């Protein structure tokens, strides 16, 4: 992960330089206007001020004041661009990493959690960068610059601020922490509230027949109360913080003024002129806003640290060997499994000494009791896992090292359930592969008998896919179309008619008959065996 970071920095070093300049400029611009004001007022007091210098000072004051906003905007935009570059590169790297992770990673990690890694955790990293580290550095420099100017104008005020600043900073952190806690509690309560809604919808029949609407309202009421109370706590902090800071500013100003007139020696210490009073008041008011920001930035950094930890773990996951470039030999035997043994992770072997040779055009049905490893065997054939012992060869090549672009011409794989992807109906079949032509899609759909259904959709095949368009059985037909669209040599069917009613099942068996012509077929399904015959292989103890 550190590599990605450094690479991005190196690639965008010019941008980084401009960013640093912009930060310096923004600090400079933000601290000069009070100095000009001081000059104007002191000149006015002395009475020696004519029209043109007055005009010039006015224009300069305006330019700096107005310009500070523009420079700030420029700085913010640069920070955003930088943050975006880093997250872009990081996400790209993570996506490429997905290709190298073993199949077991996807089995052991929930898709939602991994997605949140790529979406939310990378976002917090971006926060760490732009509203965390960079802004914090800028804010700290702003505070020090203001302090330097203040010390120069009035050492007494400088000392006064140095005493108050840490106290007020602690106060700020105290309130921010309390608010964060309250907000966290609120978020927890809100997410519980949100869980109650789908639950209510799902269980509405029970609620109605048991007539427990009142109870449900109370139950919901409790969680929204929690959120209400958390908000009240956060509101208290939110309301009182800013008044305290402003009152403190005023007290500091009053203290400064009172001390500076109390004795000549103190007056020297405070170094007051009429103009510097106005300037110093402006500085006192300015020094607290970066203070508040620093508090927030510390928070951002803290919350990002957890995210970074998770990202590091992701990059530390063991990877498997890169997909190879082996090419299958069409003349070789479609499938040879020799004395294979396999088990997941550290578990015991699921099967061992398993040997199977399938000739071209053969139809083989694998049977065995639950857990004997029928589906696992398919995963070995597909190269998702490698056997512990023995070997698996598909057209003479190790399936886990087969060149990726050739896979669809070798394998067609249909599972118990159709897994829809994000996209149109046509994308379900092509998997967005540009090599799959519209004609091939049409042919595949005709083959499984789904052309008319798809064609009748509002935008035909270009209709964005929605699960409600297709019944479970039709989903399986889509799966079959996806499997055969690039004309593979071997078809693997894993219990594809499980959980279907008999009418749909017969439809699917019909489609299978159509696609099985001239292909090597392996299946885990009694019904297919009953209707099509072929060879039967038992895996595990019979």
């Amino acid at each position, binding site marked *: 992960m550190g590599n990605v970071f450094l690479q991005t920095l190196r690639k965008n070093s010019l941008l980084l330089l401009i960013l640093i300049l912009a930060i310096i400029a923004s600090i400079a611009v933000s601290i000069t206007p009070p100095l000009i004001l001081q000059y104007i007022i002191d000149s006015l007091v002395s009475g020696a001020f004519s029209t043109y210098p007055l005009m010039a000072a006015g224009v300069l004051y305006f330019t700096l004041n107005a310009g500070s906003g523009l420079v700030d905007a420029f700085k913010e935009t640069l920070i*955003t661009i930088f943050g975006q570059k880093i997250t872009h590169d990081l996400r790209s790297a993570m996506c490429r990493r997905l290709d190298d992770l073993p199949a077991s990673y996807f089995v052991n990690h929930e898709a939602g959690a*991994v997605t949140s890694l790529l979406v939310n955790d990378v976002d917090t990293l971006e926060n760490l960068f732009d509203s965390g580290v960079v802004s914090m550095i800028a804010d700290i420099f702003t505070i020090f610059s203001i302090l330097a100017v203040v010390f120069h104008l009035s050492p007494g005020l400088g000392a006064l601020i140095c005493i108050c600043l840490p106290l007020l900073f602690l106060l700020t952190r105290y309130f921010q922490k309390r608010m964060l806690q309250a907000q966290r509690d609120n978020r927890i309560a809100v997410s519980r509230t949100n869980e109650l*809604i789908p639950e209510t919808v*799902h269980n509405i029949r029970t609620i109605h027949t048991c007539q427990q609407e*009142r109870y449900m309202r109370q139950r919901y009421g409790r969680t929204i109360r929690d959120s209400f109370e958390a908000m009240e706590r956060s509101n208290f902090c939110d309301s009182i913080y800013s008044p305290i800071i402003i009152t403190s500013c*005023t007290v500091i100003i009053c203290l400064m003024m009172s001390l500076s007139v109390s004795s000549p020696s103190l007056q020297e210490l405070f170094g007051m002129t009429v103009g510097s009073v106005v300037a110093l008041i402006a500085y006192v008011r300015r020094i607290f806003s970066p203070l508040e920001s620093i508090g927030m930035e510390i928070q951002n950094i803290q919350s990002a640290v957890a995210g970074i930890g998770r990202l590091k773990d992701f990059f530390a996951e063991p990877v498997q060997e890169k997909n190879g470039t082996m090419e299958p030999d069409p003349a070789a035997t479609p499938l040879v499994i020799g004395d294979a043994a396999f088990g997941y992770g550290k578990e015991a072997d699921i099967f061992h000494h398993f040997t199977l040779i399938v000739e071209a055009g053969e139809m083989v049905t694998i049977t065995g009791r639950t857990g004997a490893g029928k589906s696992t065997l398919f995963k070995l054939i597909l190269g998702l896992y490698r056997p512990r012992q023995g070997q698996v060869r598909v057209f003479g090549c190790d399936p886990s090292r087969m060149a990726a672009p050739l896979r669809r011409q070798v394998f067609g*794989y249909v599972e118990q359930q159709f897994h829809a992807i994000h996209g149109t109906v046509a994308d379900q079949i092509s998997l967005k592969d540009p090599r799959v032509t519209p004609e091939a899609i049409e042919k595949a759909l005709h083959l499984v008998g789904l052309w008319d259904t798809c064609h009748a959709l509002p935008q035909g095949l270009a209709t964005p896919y929605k699960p409600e368009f297709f019944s479970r059985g039709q989903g399986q037909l889509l799966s079959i179309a996806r499997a055969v669209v690039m004309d593979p040599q071997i078809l693997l069917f894993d219990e594809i008619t499980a959980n279907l009613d008999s009418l749909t099942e017969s439809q699917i068996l019909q489609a299978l008959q159509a696609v099985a012509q001239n292909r090597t077929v392996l299946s885990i399904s009694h019904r297919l065996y009953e209707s099509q015959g072929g060879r039967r292989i038992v895996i595990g103890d019979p």
Partner: protein
Amino acid sequence: MKRLGPGSVRYYFYHEKKLLLIVTLSGILYNVGMIAAPWFDGQLAQCLYDIFAGNRTAADMYVLCLSYALVILGVQSSRYVKRLYVRKFANNISLSMKDILYQHLVQTPKRDMEQADTGALMTKVISDIDTCVEGMRKFTTEIFDTGIVMVTYVVMIAWYDWRLTLCVLVFPPIAYALANSLRRTVAMTAARSKESSGALSGMTLDRISNAMTYRVYGEEAVQDQRYEDYLTDYEKKMILANLWENALQPIYKVIAMIGTILVIWSGGHNVLGTGWETWDIAAFSTYLTCFIRLATKSSHAAKLFNAIQKAQVSWLRIQPHLRAASTLPRTVPPAAPAYLTVRHLSFTYPGSDVPIFQDLSFSARPGDIIGITGPVASGKSTLGLAFLCENPHGGQILFGTQELGNGHTSPKGIAGYCGHDAELFAGTIEENIRLGKGGDIIPVLNAVCMDQDCASFPDGIRTLIGEGGQRLSGGQQARIALARTLFHPRPLLILDDPFAAVDMATERAIYSHLRRDCKDRIILLISHRLTLFPMLDQIIWLNGDGSSIAATHEELYVSCHAYRKLYDLQHAQGGGSHG
């Protein structure tokens, strides 16, 4: 006058009128007090000038400083009160809106829920409430913090020099007009970046959840390339949205601040005694500070309108739901046992013209258990649901003398239901059975043979069962659902396949408990497993083509070939569980 209902914004403002009064008083106090700081700042400079000139003493400065500190303390206290109460106000509204909305949700008929994705819709509506309330809060805040404070500043500076004020006030409206004209662009780029962010999340989830599919087919590289396109698009749109959002504010500020040149030039002349008015240093300083604050405020005004607009949009989305809300209905007490008579019952799904079943007649006495069975997809569950009258049916269902459904008597308090789906809540076993009803739950736990299961859990009946009861086995879920149905007694019980995931011995035990405990109830037992059927009082066989037969087990076994075949098949497998 029209009564204000929860479907009107004013209802909520009216409801919180006490809080609003506090907000108004403290808001006016604070915002008028806002001019104190610039005035005092000017006075401090002036006082110092006078002390240097020998016109005043240090004591004057002490008094000035003390009164400054005290005034600011007062002003900031009222600010605190205002901020706190405006937030309380918003929080209260959010609470009552959510409550009203939930009451509406919980009363929505099952039929209506099936039509739309109600869960997602409602979750969205609730997040809309937060946006809307936030808008209401900002609106209330800004009436004071922008409206009143700006008027105060204008009056203040006009009092110092009305001619200069007229000149410098030209600029803030220009800034405001510009802000208004660019608002749409900002909103559009923001919306686009949001869209792109949503698309990216969708793609990420797709890439990961279908990772195995892509790997099997060797399509991972294709997907990575696509993902890269989405990333580039996202980067571009985010930067653009940020640029607009960051750049606008300073541009308004530049325009609004042009007036400062005039203030320094003309104000300087005032101090030097060659201008429109005669000023001292205090006046100069106060005027300049007030004007800068005014200009900054006016550049914020655009933000206020954005917030209000957002609130309006979300209000329009939640308003129909709030308007439709009504208070919860009275609970109907459980009805007394009575005879059930079903005459020529038929059911057709809305939008279809093929009846699922038709011309079904039978009757039952309290204490009867009637079995309902038939081949797969013959409408067994649909028949059970007909008694809940969620959709209109053909023919008549009479409970005693009352006709159920079709606009007659509601089955509330008459029909109890335990469906295929256990419909459990994330909570404890006890909460799931009670649903807020008092009494002893041990008898029903015993009746469904859950007592031993519960004893084996560390927390007993207080065991948390997880979302949808997922921490329990299927059989345990089904039995808890059955226990809940029994705990809320109704004279007519519809049990849809309650024994599907229960072993044979438990099934028999529960059956005997039902016989023992439900002597005055009618039970319709829907099942694909026929083990118990010889003991039932009557069987309804659905043929699957709409026709049906109601008879005893013995009669059906003799007369109905399909029933006999099914029964024998299961019997041959030892009463098998494959159905």
